[in-house]
């Protein structure tokens, strides 16, 4: 990654994280109690991404991945 790309990304992340404390929650947007936790969706994104990678690459892979000539 180039430096300006990294800076832009970090800036955007910062805005999105801090922004959460300045916006008012949409009253029409009915949400569960847990989604109101501060930074819930940030943690969700990070943990979800890692979980997906590891579940797919270490568990699911064993179940479904085979050599390319498997059906031949």
């Amino acid at each position, binding site marked *: 990654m180039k430096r300006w790309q990294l800076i832009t990304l970090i800036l955007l*992340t910062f805005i999105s994280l801090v922004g959460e404390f300045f916006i008012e929650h949409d009253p029409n947007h009915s949400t569960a109690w847990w989604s109101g936790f501060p930074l819930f*969706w940030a*943690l*969700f994104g990070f943990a979800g*991404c890692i979980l997906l990678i590891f579940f797919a*690459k270490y568990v699911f892979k064993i*179940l479904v991945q*085979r050599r390319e000539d*498997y059906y031949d």
Partner: protein
Amino acid sequence: MISIIHPSLLMIVGAILLPLLPKVFRSAVFIIASLAGLIILWTLPEGNYLTLNFLGNNLILLKVDALSKIFAAIFAIITIMGGVYAYHLKDAVQQTAALFYSASAIGVTFAGDFITLFVFWELMAAASLVLIWSKKDKASAKAGMRYLIVHLFGGSLLLAGIILHISDTGSILVEHLLSKNSVANWFIIAGFGLNAAIPPLNAWLPDAYPKATVTGAVFLSALTTKTAVYALARVFAGWEVLLILGTIMTVYGVIYAVLSNDIRELLSYHIISQVGYMVAGIGIGTMIGVNGSTAHAFSHILYKGLLFMGAGVLIHATGRSKLSELGGLAKFLPITLVLYLVGGFSISGVPLFNGFISKSMVVYAAGDIHNYLAVILMNIAMVGTFLSTTLKLPYLAWFNPARTPCPPDWRQPVGRGSGGKEKPDAEIKLNPIPINMHIGMGLTAFLCVLFGVAPSLLYQYLPYQVSYEPYTGAHLVETAQILLLTFFGFWVFRKKLAAEPLISLDFDWFYRRPKYFIKRLLVDGVLSVFDKTDKILMKVVNTLIYFGKNPGNTIAILTLKEPSAKYFDYDPNISRPSTLLIISGILLVFVIIIAVVVI
């Protein structure tokens, strides 16, 4: 009344005329026919038209309302875009098939009765098959055959359902069905579900689409699954089973996509994932749910077409489709990268792109009925979509540090410029990209951004009037947090995502793998018994022959474990003792006989 023309009819006429025209006009006529289809269908007033009597049933060929109109419109739009993308194509078979395919899809959306719907449904399967077989290699021939068989099965389910439905109710109208106790309804939903690629009826899609032609895959990605989404929305809105299956689909497709090696297989699994949102929205069945599904189908057709176009450019340029064989293309295909990323941002639901304004509607609808498990799973699917489509695929295909710098002679003819150094891809050269491919991508990308920036352009044509505002502060922050942190997760573990040359088993295992066992049982098994018998018999025969040549070898044959030819030829050292023994034995017998006679 006379002024009403069926848009499909016009496109079918175009498709039939197409092969008769000179080559240079075909691509233009393709675009004009689909454009004319779009204009006609968009100006149709709501109502039932073109009714005709068939075997005592009143067929309604053209039933126009908001739902059918918006679906038909997007089918026509993507046909135009695909026509631009495929403008360079000089293959009348594919062009005719694509136009037929699109016309049939529009025919399904406007069908007011089940008989018309079924006819167009099957025409669609046949026309789409041509786009797979046109690739003309062994893999596509086989995959096309499986596609055909699976779709014939799906068509049979649908037909069985329709026949049962007509005999139960006497009605042939395509209308909202409610009864969950009717066998007919379950047959129909299974027939629709197969085309919507709902697991376990999903495997045909990632099996066949990666093997279609570069341009054909664009049409395939847009039409078959979305006509099924339309049919489900029309007939089965509010069936809870669709909410459950749809939510599972969103995650199911995403997990497979993480593992996929073929770029179009990866995108195919994301079709399953994205169609999951639509199926779930239909399962929710509220006005906002069905609106969300419709909007998402509209957005999805645009960005998925764009993504398949981008993947098609990669395949066209390199002749390769596997991530494990691609890499370092950023220098050569920068425009393709940018346009592909527009599609990638759209499918991931990045604000200002069209996925954001439609996907969120379905998630909102799930939250609205307090199904938070569905909300969580759909958001996981969003994480996975961003991860595979927008981060992993471009990273591995365009950058891939394991394969950079890209061999400089990718642009050179075979055998030149290797300079003695080892270059793993020296034999590859980049094919030139026809400009129309990029124009097609550019137009589609423009629409993706247009509807993302101005969602009301789309919202006003949705089937129900409900107010929904995607650009709220809370929604923006939520989306930004999920996507940005997904990016950091990807960046930390990007090495783990390296593509491996493996294939993934799906539900197609159940009809592809038995072939192996049946072959072993009925072919290999029988052959090996035959083979063994043959060997044993030959051995016996050979032994007898050598025995006949020289009976003195008997002992040698019996004592040696592996009687081979060299022991059967005359060898005094081996033959002498046994011959001696036999002669002595015979003499002894004679002596005994004589002795007995004399005495």
